[in-house]
């Protein structure tokens, strides 16, 4: 395909998107799950900012939103998170629950996002910058596919039963605050 044809294709897609104006993301449609907030220990929530104010390395330290349970179809979570400051280590930012804490995306040190179970590094991350996380949960095949800044970073299998999403700040079993994170652009989709 020569360069001129590729360029035309890009511009035509751009025009088409402008004509439809709103998101036309293929088969995805909006989903609006309800949520409740959960705080424990030194956790606090102010709007969309979730904080753990203490450096305690034990006990339940939590500031999160827990979204509505689902058990069928394919659901997608999308949100932008910024870790404003991290004075501790190993803080969970986003979770997809199955029968237990299944997929947990956390931040460690000043510069890494990782999967808590197994410890795999998912992406580099600079404290203070914004990063977008998408989690697509396929209930039919009991897997969740995690994306960081739009790119797939892992396919996590072994889920079962019902599922739900969480976001915020949560001390993992080996972690501690203090930490402050802000979430924005939180959206959900389904197909």
């Amino acid at each position, binding site marked *: 395909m020569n360069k001129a044809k590729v360029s035309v294709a890009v511009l035509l897609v751009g025009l088409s998107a402008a004509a439809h104006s*709103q998101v036309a*993301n*293929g088969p995805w449609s909006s989903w609006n799950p309800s949520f409740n907030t959960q705080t424990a220990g030194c956790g606090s929530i102010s709007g969309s900012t979730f904080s753990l104010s203490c450096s305690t*390395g034990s006990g339940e330290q939590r500031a999160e939103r827990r979204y509505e349970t689902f058990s069928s179809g394919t659901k997608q979570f999308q949100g932008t998170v910024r870790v404003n400051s991290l004075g501790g280590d190993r803080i969970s930012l986003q979770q997809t629950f199955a029968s237990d804490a299944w997929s947990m995306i956390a931040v460690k*040190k000043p510069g890494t996002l990782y999967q808590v179970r197994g410890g795999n590094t998912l992406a580099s991350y600079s404290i203070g*910058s914004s990063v*977008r996380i998408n989690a697509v949960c396929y209930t039919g095949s009991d897997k969740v596919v995690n994306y960081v800044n*739009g790119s797939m970073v892992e396919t996590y299998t072994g889920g079962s039963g019902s599922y739900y999403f969480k976001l915020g700040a949560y001390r993992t079993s080996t972690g501690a605050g203090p930490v402050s994170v802000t979430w924005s652009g939180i*959206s959900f989709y389904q197909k």
Partner: protein
Amino acid sequence: MMRLCSCVLLMFVGGLSGCSRSVTEPAAPETLRLSASMISPVDIALEWHDPATDVAGHVLEYTNDPDKEGYVPLGFFPPNHTRFVHPRLIPETKFYYRVRAYYGPVSNSVEVSLPKELTAEAYAAAYALPEDYQWAPPATLPESSNVTKRSIRSTTTAVEAAPSNLKAELATHTVSGFKLTWTDRSSDEQGFFLEWQREGSSEFFVCALVEPDINSFGWAFEPPEKTGSFRIRASYYGEPSNVVTLLTGKDPELGE
């Protein structure tokens, strides 16, 4: 919309003229331009061209819905890097991209090195354990003396407005953390970049961002990195380029 229509017409004209033997190449754009193409149903290649010669680098950004959410950076690139592949994308989803130039003067550079006696095994083992980073959050420390702040956006004052006196002190209660401090001499930065030059490399890459007025924060090497040079840039951004939009297809490897 009118500008896009004109561009489409120009592209069609370019395509028609390509049917003949002689092809007229379009004139180089006079402003920062971004283009994108699908290299697979879920991989997008991006390329940009900036005729300006005074930029410090470019930041490539994306969003899935500009009406609902902001752009997030995909990467910061030195001036001679003009391509990026955005890989393994969310299927059947629209991606919007733009690129912005960034500018600003830099501080002195400092070399940082972990102790030579730290073995690779000990480094990895220590890094795997939780550590105390309470000293690391970005902070504005009181200046030791009066500092006159100047604009980084004027060629007559940018040099004097550059961050100065950059120091890096190893945090000995961590395996690879170090505290950076500098003198903030700029009055109009949008933030500061920490830039890192790997041993043996000629280029500095942005590895961390902090807010305006910050003059202290902590950062850590990740194994196996043990050495490098750092500098701080007082930064500001230029206007964004054109926005390009592509819709991904099904992911052939996901099977969903």
